[in-house]
């Protein structure tokens, strides 16, 4: 479903701030794979997701989604294939628009937009039912502006929006990092539920090793813009946080381990 083939990206090439962010990342996800991505700060986790999303073009390598080569497609054209949830709860939704209007925008992802009404009566009823599923009481506030919602509510809404139109690949970029632990757990549980119910292919970046082990059927660890460890299926289930820390040390990445990863 997702084939990343030896992608490389260097930011500020040729300047004093040159940063080799991706050093030949190769990753293949089958349909229905839920892959977690861990690694220290600056290891290239989020950069990999941004490369898939097409925030900027890669320097070399190729990216295929569902068999289609999207390497040359810009961000808004690639959106057709992707659902995205960002680290910052403010990024995924439009604050000045109503909850139902945000959902309507997401329902038309990848379609050409016309002068038809931006939201129909039938959609309103559908969204009412979908919002009930979140169990946050948002179904009674459909005409409220999204700016009035809390970070957790916005993130749950973003998740719903990202999967409203079934994406080929769902990209979750540390989407619980900005939330309090309780809300983070709830949003993560919701992510699990949506992914398994819809049999989505997903790529989730996290700082929390425990979460990375518990969720999904595949795990990759990154350091210095490369994937240094990969596990799936039974092998992944047996992993412990200690195992992962050891892998880090082996690769000389120990210095990048931060508190939240150990505490996780």
């Amino acid at each position, binding site marked *: 479903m997702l084939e990343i083939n030896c992608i490389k990206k260097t930011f500020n090439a040729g300047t004093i701030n040159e940063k080799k962010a991706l050093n030949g990342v190769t990753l293949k996800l089958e349909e229905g794979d839920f892959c977690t991505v861990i690694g220290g700060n600056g290891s290239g986790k989020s950069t990999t997701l941004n490369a898939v*999303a097409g925030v900027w073009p890669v320097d070399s390598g190729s990216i295929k989604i569902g068999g289609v080569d999207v390497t040359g497609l810009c*961000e*808004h*054209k690639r*959106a*057709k294939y*992707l659902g*995205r949830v*960002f680290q910052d709860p*403010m*990024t*995924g*939704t*439009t*604050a*000045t*628009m109503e909850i139902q*209007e945000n959902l*309507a*925008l*997401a329902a*038309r*992802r*990848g*379609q050409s*937009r*016309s*002068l*038809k*009404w*931006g*939201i129909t009566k039938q959609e309103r009823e559908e969204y009412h039912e979908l919002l009930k599923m979140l169990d946050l009481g948002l179904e009674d506030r459909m005409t409220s502006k999204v700016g009035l919602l809390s970070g957790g509510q916005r993130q749950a809404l973003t998740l719903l*929006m990202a999967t409203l139109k079934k994406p080929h690949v769902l990209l979750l970029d540390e989407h619980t990092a900005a939330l309090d632990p309780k809300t983070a757990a709830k949003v993560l549980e919701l992510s699990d539920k949506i992914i398994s119910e819809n049999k989505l292919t997903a790529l989730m970046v996290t700082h929390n090793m425990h979460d990375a082990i518990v969720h999904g059927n595949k795990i990759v660890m990154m350091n210095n813009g490369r994937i240094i460890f990969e596990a799936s299926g039974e092998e992944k289930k047996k992993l412990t946080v200690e195992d992962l820390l050891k892998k880090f040390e082996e690769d000389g990445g120990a210095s990048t381990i931060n508190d939240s990863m150990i505490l996780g």
Partner: protein
Amino acid sequence: MNIMTLVNALPGSVAQGLIWGILAIGVYITYKILDFADLTVDGSLGTGGAVAVVLIVNGVPVPLAIVCAFLAGCLAGLVTGLLNTLLGIPGILAGILTQLALYSINLDIMGQANTAINVDKYPLFMSLRFIPMTILKGVIVVALLIAVLYWFFGTEYGFTIRATGCNSNMARAQGINTKKSTVIALILSNGLVGLAGGLLAQYQGNADVNMGRGAIVIGLAAVIIGEVFGELILGKHLNFSGRLAFTAIGAIIYFIVIQIVLWLGLSTQNTKLFSAIVVAVFLAVPYIKRASKNSFRAAAKKSAGNVNEKGGSENA
């Protein structure tokens, strides 16, 4: 200071306010919806005026000339939009460049700095000689425009512009071409400004190369005054069409206030100074209100008060 001179002048202020209200609604689209400070306005108003007057003088039917004024404004917006999105020039600078270029273009269109047009010789749509009729037509035009914009911003297309203005990252993630929606919003906005210019030139009986100078400030004044009054009167019930209507009302209030200060003795050469002060005050008041509720000085006072109380009780 005869109160009757003021009263007699007020209908003219209302008529003028309605025409500038169209411009203000255009400014609302860029400033409020797209979040783009578009200074093209100062040029495109004159372009609309010049196009309308030159066409009418050369025998083109008035309605067609008004449509052309709208289209000329659209073209100006397109230029600013392309400078910004295709060539990466920051929004404010893109607007300034277009505005400056339009000064020359407006002179080229007219061949002179000022072209007069006489309502006795041409069947003009509106004129300061027939103020009641101008007000009636102005109200109809503004109401029609609000209806059309209410519809447009409720469509899938309108949604993309609103999303682009508020959160362009999110818009792109939803597959919206944010460059395209930026350009479309600028075209629409400046089209309305061009239309306002076409009507204003007919109303005042001439198109002048300087007619757009400071137009953006008047437009902003109308948007801000309208917002303050709209929220005061309608509160939570202020919806999108209400906001547009109050933007036009804001323009009317602005011209009435100008009329009053002129009557009180302000010289006409100082009206632009006055406009700038009005906008500055209306922009500053909400900020100062917020800041005074939430200031370090207040926090320091409270903190000092607590220490004294505590100290007092300990001593006692």
